């Protein structure tokens, strides 16, 4: 009896499947669902990594080409600068005298003493703070002091004179304060 029921149930189910298969709406929606599922799987498993890799490589190429462009420009500038340097190489020692690397105040001090003796004035006091802030006191006549000051202003080694004071005590005294310039790499 149970066997008979089973057979009848199976036959009934087959009839149901046959009837359902004939319904176009179900067939279409099944195809649609399967297609969408396949698309979702393909997009997430195959298309996404491929597109991400392509975009990453394109981004790398773009960034590399930007850097390359800037480096090419820099190379052209360095080449031009080298040509300019070679053209004026012999004249550039003037820069070392005007703005030496490091403080190099000893040579400047000796040169200033030469200028003082050449101008007929006497250096009575020196001070140099941190190798750049200087103060020089001199005695002598007006003409000599003027000559000294004019020569000092025109020396190749660059100085920034901040103040000049002329005082009459026992002798005429000139006090010059300023900053000794030198090249400092930033």
């Amino acid at each position, binding site marked *: 009896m149970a066997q008979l029921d089973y057979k009848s149930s199976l036959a009934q189910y087959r009839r149901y499947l046959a009837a359902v298969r004939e319904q176009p709406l179900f067939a279409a929606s099944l195809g649609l669902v399967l297609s*969408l599922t396949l698309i979702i799987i393909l997009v997430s498993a195959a298309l*996404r990594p491929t597109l991400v890799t392509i975009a990453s490589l394109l981004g790398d190429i773009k960034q590399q080409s930007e850097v390359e462009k800037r*480096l090419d420009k820099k190379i052209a*500038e360095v080449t031009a600068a080298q040509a300019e340097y070679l053209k004026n190489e012999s004249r550039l020692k003037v820069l070392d005298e*005007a703005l030496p690397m490091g403080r190099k105040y000893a040579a400047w001090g000796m040169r200033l003493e030469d200028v003082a003796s050449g101008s007929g004035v006497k250096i009575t006091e020196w001070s140099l703070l941190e190798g750049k802030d200087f103060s020089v006191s001199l005695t002598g006549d007006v003409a000599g002091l003027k000559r000294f000051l004019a020569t000092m202003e025109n020396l*190749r080694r660059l100085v920034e004179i901040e103040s000049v004071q002329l005082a009459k005590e026992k002798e005429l005294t000139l006090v010059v304060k300023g900053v000794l310039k030198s090249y400092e790499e930033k």
Partner: protein
Amino acid sequence: MRKNKTDRQVVVVLVMTLMALVAWVGFEVYRAYNLVNISPVSDKQLLELSPTLDIPSLEKLESRIP
């Protein structure tokens, strides 16, 4: 009738999933395109350099007392 309704709901869910997936992929692609992957070149190397020499200033220095 109930079966049709269920099918439509499944399709809507799948379409929404696909849209979200496409948006996610688009975002990932955009992020990958803009992500810096190359080794950094120091700014000092890329700093622009003026190749011209200030000749008038050089001449002024030359005219000063050595």
